[in-house]
């Protein structure tokens, strides 16, 4: 297949996957809802009176208070993490760079946990997001400046930096667990595991706009990311302001990761798996890659969350556990393939 044909095929697959994921997520649960009722309820909310809309108030509030915000949150967080992953890989020039793997997520979680334990309440809902952003930003800056040398990323240093940051953030979280009261402890544990449980429209209202702005900015920078693949010097020779691009991108990654972590905790590997699969399907060109990653990330999180809350009846599994369950073996696969091709990463 040509790349264009692959692109069209991928778009269709992604859109179908997304619609199926959303529909199933709205239907399945303790209270079963039919597809007709979902469509009817959506139409009614859009101001179109129809006969499909559920007459039962319990169904209506299950959809609008519990399931819909959770679905939209999943889409926004999945898209944010996948876009953050693509952008990180672009500026590091390396497919292993991912917010969870290199410690940006745990940095953000540490920031968010600090906001809770120390009871910072100045900015309401935005507090946790702001602290998560600052934590993620510090972690990203650290990774960037430690693992880059002479315009190249050394993979070993990148991953070791990730280990160091994860260890440090882990220690910080452990201390906060120790220092915090019972309520804070529960919340911190929730961050470490990652969950979409209890998503509120108010929170969606913070995550979704930031994700959309981040996505638009990333797509606009897409051509420059392509040039960056030639190496920093060559990109500069082609007119890219590399310094501005990387500083802007680091802020972008921290913002997208921070906002996702602030409300849903650490959901690792989405930014690794999604861009990688899409790159294999349609090639590395960043504009289509970033757009498709956003859709793919949303679909992946929706499916993962559907499994998380239905696989064990009556229980809500942490979604971070599920994505790591997929991501771990995927990481092994990447290592194995690279070793077969070129004897591993040097």
């Amino acid at each position, binding site marked *: 297949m040509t790349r264009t044909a692959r692109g069209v095929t991928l778009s269709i697959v992604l859109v179908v996957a997304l619609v199926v994921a959303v529909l199933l997520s709205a239907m399945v649960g303790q209270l079963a809802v039919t597809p007709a009722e979902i469509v009817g309820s959506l139409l009614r909310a859009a101001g179109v009176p129809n006969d499909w809309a559920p007459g039962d108030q319990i169904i209506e509030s299950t959809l609008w208070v519990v399931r819909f915000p959770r679905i939209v949150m999943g889409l926004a967080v999945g898209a944010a993490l996948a876009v953050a992953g693509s952008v990180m890989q672009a500026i590091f020039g390396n497919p292993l760079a991912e917010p969870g793997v290199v410690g940006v997520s745990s940095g953000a979680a540490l920031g968010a946990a600090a906001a809770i334990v120390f009871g910072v309440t100045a900015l309401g809902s935005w507090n946790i997001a702001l602290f998560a952003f600052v934590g993620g930003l510090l972690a990203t800056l650290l990774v960037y400046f430690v693992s880059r040398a002479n315009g190249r990323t050394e993979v070993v240093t990148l991953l070791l930096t990730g280990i160091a940051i994860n260890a440090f953030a882990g220690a910080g979280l452990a201390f906060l667990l120790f220092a915090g009261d019972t309520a804070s402890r529960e919340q911190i544990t929730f961050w470490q595991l990652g969950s979409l449980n209890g998503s509120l429209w108010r929170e969606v209202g913070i995550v979704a706009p930031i994700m959309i702005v981040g996505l638009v900015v990333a797509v606009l920078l897409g051509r420059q990311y392509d040039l960056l693949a*030639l190496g920093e010097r060559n990109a500069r020779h*082609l*007119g890219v302001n590399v310094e501005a691009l990387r500083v802007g991108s680091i802020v972008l990654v921290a913002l997208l990761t921070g906002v996702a972590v602030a409300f849903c905790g650490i959901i690792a590997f989405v930014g690794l798996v999604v861009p990688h699969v899409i790159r294999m399907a349609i*090639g590395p060109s960043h504009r289509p890659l970033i757009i498709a990653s956003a859709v793919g990330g949303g679909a992946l999180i929706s499916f993962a969350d559907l499994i998380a809350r239905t696989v064990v009846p009556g229980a809500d599994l942490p979604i971070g556990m599920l994505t790591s369950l997929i991501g771990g073996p995927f990481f092994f696969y990447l290592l194995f393939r690279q070793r077969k091709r070129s004897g591993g990463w040097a």
Partner: protein
Amino acid sequence: MSAPKTSGSPTIVATGVSVVIEARAIVDDVSIEIRGGELLALVGPNGAGKSTLLSILSGDVRPTRGSVTIAGHDIRSLRHLELARLRSVLTQENQVSFPFTVNEVVEMGRSPWAKTAGRDDDAGAIAAAVRATDIGHLGERRYTSLSGGEKARVSLARVLAQSAGTVFLDEPTAALDLRHQEDVMRTARALAAEGRAVVVVVHDLSLAGAYADRVALIADGRLESTGTPLEVLTAERVERVYGLPVEVIVTNTRPVILPVRGAFPA
């Protein structure tokens, strides 16, 4: 705009440039002019400062002292994109992080012209670059799967597609076989014939002697000598600068430099 035909006028003027790192002058008080329509070869021993001088002339490295102008502008006053339309650079390192196809990589050379009138030349410039570097058969291959020599040619094609008035080539022949070495130097000549200024760093003195209009010999960061190949590449001077006895044979008014072998005990 793509190919200035102002043959003879200086495009790059460097005046008294020096780069001092840790009290050591890597490049020491070099003044040099490069004119449109000429092929200038930068030669010299390893560590003499050729690559650093090239980086200064192309605007990558800011000299500790001295100034560089390109097409009449102070090189530091130009924005990245403006500079990219004036000069292109082939670096020694040409890794590509992700598996872009050869066509995609060559197209990237056109990016400085996006959203300008210059984009109308995109197809023509790319076709000419592909032809000149003999990579037409590689188009849909992934760059990351190519051999070293193929990568070097594709990178050269990208640099040519950029259609800049001044072209810097840092050791473009290093990874190439005999025929492709000659092809690259012929391409460099053709660029000069179109009115562009071409600066090439080469190690093979015979290659420099055969194709350059002018040779600049760098030794210990200083401009040792500049002039026609026959003027610069004398046996006495090459011997002194490289510390190796050589024989210079002149064929077709061009010098061929051969080390005198067997002059040392085996």
